[in-house]
């Protein structure tokens, strides 16, 4: 288990979500659910972040920003799609300005459905994300050794 997978730092971006999932992401970090006690901190800097929590259904205006944040993050990195809009577009699927799901823009590792996604589901997804993060770190190490 690497240092980053013990206490991964998360970054959050609202990709045209209704705020419901965003405040639940924050609520998961705050007292009540309090994942900060494990050292999981919400950071504003993509370069410090290990896990990318994306909420919302992604539209034409912000798809580039999601890609940009994803590219700025340092490997290994994990993307968690929070909420049903981020997974598939949800209730907004038919809207003209909705692309429908984060996986249309960047590769997603863990899906956390729900409208709005419950903090328990976010925590569960982050825990699954930690396992993925470990795998990716191992693969990265092996690749470096091989090179």
């Amino acid at each position: 288990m690497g240092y980053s997978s013990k206490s991964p730092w998360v970054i959050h971006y609202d990709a045209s979500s209704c705020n419901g999932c965003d405040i639940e992401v924050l609520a998961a970090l705050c007292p009540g659910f309090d994942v900060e006690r494990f050292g999981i901190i919400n950071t504003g800097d993509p370069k410090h972040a290990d896990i990318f929590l994306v909420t919302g259904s992604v539209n034409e205006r912000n798809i580039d920003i999601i890609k940009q944040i994803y590219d700025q993050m340092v490997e290994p990195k994990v993307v968690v799609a929070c909420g049903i809009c981020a997974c598939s577009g949800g209730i907004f699927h038919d809207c003209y300005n909705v692309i429908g799901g984060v996986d249309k823009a960047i590769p997603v590792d863990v899906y956390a459905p729900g409208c709005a996604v419950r903090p328990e589901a976010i925590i569960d997804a982050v825990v699954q994300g930690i396992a993925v993060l470990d795998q990716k770190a191992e693969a990265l190490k092996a690749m470096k050794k091989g090179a």
Partner: protein
Amino acid sequence: MGTASVIPFGPQHPVLPEPLHLDLVVEDEVVLEAMPQIGFVHRGLERLVRSKDYNQFLYVAERICGICAFGHSMGYAETVERLMGIEIPQRADYLRTIWHEMSRIHSHILWLGLAADAFGFESLFMHCWRLRERVLDLFEKTTGGRVIFSVCKVGGVQRDISPSQMSEILAVLDGLRDEYSQLVKTFLGDSSVYSRTAGIGAIPHKDAVELSMVGPFGRASGVNYDVRMLGHGAYGDLADFQPVLSTDCDCYARMEVRCAEVLQSIDIIAELASKIPAGDIMVPVKGNPAVDAEACNVLEQPRGECYYYAKGNGSKYLDRMRMRTPTSQNLAGMTLALKGCDLADVNMIILTIDPCVSCTER
């Protein structure tokens, strides 16, 4: 004097959970002009009214914004009821108002937390969000949802609040009042908070009226307007309602107004709970809105006046659904407040209008 340069603010910024982009023209750390750019949350919800019928659209209306979710479903339901001439039972009206006022409490405490985070008071932020969880627990007990309730329907509400639940609500809110008052002491009495907010981003009363600012943002500049004082629905049965006003016009005043409004909402809920009539909570809804029938409605959201308009076309689909949200009213005030401020105060000023980007852009 240096030369002017442009600094981008957002859309991904730690101070706001929402994407708001500003181009700040700065010279020597002083903001000369702020140009907001929007569209990051635009989904095109008003168009959905053509493909979802008026009952289905209620669930879309609720998802316009996750913070004022109940307010939007209530505002939409009331508009459609006016459109079709439906009279809802009084108990349903009271229940809606109680949930709406609880949403205001949760929204204002959420905002106070974010404001504390913006001026760098992390522990105060955590305390605010700890208190907010109790209101969310009440929502979960009475409606089943923490954020999106789906409890409002055209024609009434889907769930009743039992007497035991009502007394629990009152007990929890009473307990909240004590702890909340201690937090307010820090917000309004702490010298470090005062120095970060007092005199910052002032908007004189005259400008506030001219820019038709609404909600706590306007009331902090002395704009004596709150939709609740018009006495629609259950608000008309309140013994007395006076909008919370301040005349200081700065960030501190806006904080003051919101701090007082939470206590006011607790009082309103207590009064409504003592007066709530027994009876049905829903009337059956039949038929469709008539051709060219029009209805409009105003509602005091946590962020200010929200205006709804709906037009029928004889089918189960509405012809047009339009709303004007408080944040779109207040954006002009925000750009005015940002003019001439320090770069370090930008995030504080943006937060004090309590921007709700997803309401504004829909």
